[in-house]
């Protein structure tokens, strides 16, 4: 009897552990921990939602008084805001943990992660997956879809594809910004503020109609930190709003390729950072 049970159990229990199973185990524990504090989780989620909504009021007030801002009306600007919000919310949930790199380094906790056989990046991003950050993403998604529906978009297969892919590109771009900001800590121990300037500056720029920005600022946040590619350019193409100079309709599709290219570069920087941390002085 016991033998029979052992036989049926053994194949499962001795199965090799896949990467995917490992990630699920690492993330699952975090999520169960948050579910354990149901009321505080609900409050966190609600506060994230409220925060995102408050930021939106800024755009609302602006456009209420000036009907066209950066070449967009209120509904069109809401598309931009919603899209940026979804992208940032999801990226923040996945990679926002890299914000706390400085405390990992300062408290020496990085060393406890380095003596494990799992990649440092994976350990860091799964160390504290915050589901409450979905509050912002949920608000953004609702705003994005609602605003698109009232903008009178003439849906073509192209536009449907763009509307679906744009958030993916945005998540990639913001994720890369989080990682870049985290990498900075390997060189500058108090690099938190500098890192935040890019991440949160990028978030702000991405959420407003960039047509209203001064050209040099806009060029910087398009070609250096590609924040306008997250939401403004794809939104403008989706809702047929005018594009400012140096920006073309084709650039609406650049979110994913630029995001991937950024990841490739930033991962190299990250690796260099780890090498510096473990490195031979200097």
């Amino acid at each position, binding site marked *: 009897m016991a033998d029979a049970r052992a036989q049926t*159990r*053994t194949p*499962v*229990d*001795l*199965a*090799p*552990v896949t990467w995917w*199973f*490992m990630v699920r*185990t*690492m993330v699952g*524990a975090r999520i*169960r*921990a948050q579910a354990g504090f149901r009321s505080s989780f609900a409050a966190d989620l609600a506060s994230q939602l409220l925060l995102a909504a408050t930021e939106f009021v800024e755009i609302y007030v602006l456009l209420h008084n000036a009907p066209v801002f950066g070449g967009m009306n209120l509904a069109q600007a809401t598309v931009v805001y919603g899209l940026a919000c979804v992208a940032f919310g999801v990226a923040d949930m996945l990679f926002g943990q890299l914000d706390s790199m400085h405390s990992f380094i300062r*408290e*020496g*906790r990085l*060393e*406890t992660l*380095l*003596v*494990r*056989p*799992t*990649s440092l990046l994976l*350990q860091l991003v799964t160390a504290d997956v915050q589901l409450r950050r979905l509050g912002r993403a949920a608000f953004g998604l609702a705003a994005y879809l609602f605003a698109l529906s009232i903008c009178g978009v003439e849906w073509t297969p192209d536009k449907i594809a763009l509307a679906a892919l744009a958030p993916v590109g945005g998540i990639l771009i913001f994720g890369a910004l989080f990682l870049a900001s985290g990498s900075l800590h390997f060189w500058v121990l108090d690099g938190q503020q500098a890192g935040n300037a890019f991440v949160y500056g990028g978030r702000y720029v991405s959420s407003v109609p960039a047509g209203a920005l001064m050209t040099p600022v806009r060029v910087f946040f398009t070609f250096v930190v590609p924040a306008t590619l997250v939401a403004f350019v794809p939104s403008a193409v989706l809702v047929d709003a005018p594009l400012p100079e140096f920006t073309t309709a084709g650039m609406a599709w650049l979110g994913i390729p630029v995001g991937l290219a950024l990841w490739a570069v930033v991962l190299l920087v990250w690796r260099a950072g780890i090498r510096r941390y*473990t*490195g*031979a*002085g*200097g």
Partner: protein
Amino acid sequence: MSTTIIDAEELTREFVVYDGGGLRRTRRVVRAVDGLTLRVEPGEAVGYIGANGSGKSTTIKMVSGILTPTSGSVRTCGLRPVPDRRVLARRIGVVFGQRSALWWDLPLEESFPILAAMHRMPRAVWLRRFDVLADELDLSSFLARPVRTLSLGQRMRGEVAAALLHSPALAVLDEPTIGLDMISKENLRRFLARERAERGTTLLLTTHDMGDVQRLCDRMVVIDGGRVAFDGTEADLVATTDAERILVVDLEEPLTDVVRLPDGASVTATEADGARLSIAFRPRQLSAAQVLAAVQAQGEVVELSLAEPAIEDLVRRIYASGASHTASPPPL
């Protein structure tokens, strides 16, 4: 399969330190570890002793792949620690006494499936090992409590279990008993001794607590200024430093005369009106039997005890002498 567990050759690590601030800051190179050569064979238990800033932690970081040596070489379990860091991580278990490797806000028991998954241990394998660890380290009463609510002793038992879950060949323990009460210390030492005896786990232990070393380690390495100042057994340490041993004798009646002792022995204290004598002697010159015989020639001894020099004193002597002592060549 007897790869040398730690093979360090002329291992050196420098740090750049900046003094002062602003424009006047000056660059200074500090050698934390300076030409350290150390071989540890499988199954050994080495107490790695040194004052703060002597280079202990830096050595451990180089051995476990967290720091690249400035010069010299080190192999751990036959691997190059930094380039092969993640492979090496499966063969070593590291406990940093001051830093937790557990998930702070999760119940203690939740840390183990995560670690097991990271080490890609099949369920049946890690569960069996976990049961043994939980039993021997007596974790069951607090497994369900979040790590942040555990006492230091409980947490440390959890840390040790976490570091040894994957049955590493080498356990590196940085100050494992710091801050623990006597009972917790003793239980942890007993567990580590058994782990070594049963699994052949090599232990490298840094500690300020000589009790750890005496209970667990058959080899002591004293590091001073980034160099090996002593490498040998406790007996070697006593012989090398030639510290005084103390023989305390109770006599049936106090001696009327001044006690005559062989050269190299002297009375350091007299109690109970001369019925109890404390006699200090140097182990290189005299044995305890010779001293005892001299006393017995003059009076009836009813009780005796022999006090060994405190190991702390011996290490202090090593430090004070400043010279390097290597009692015996490292075992091959």
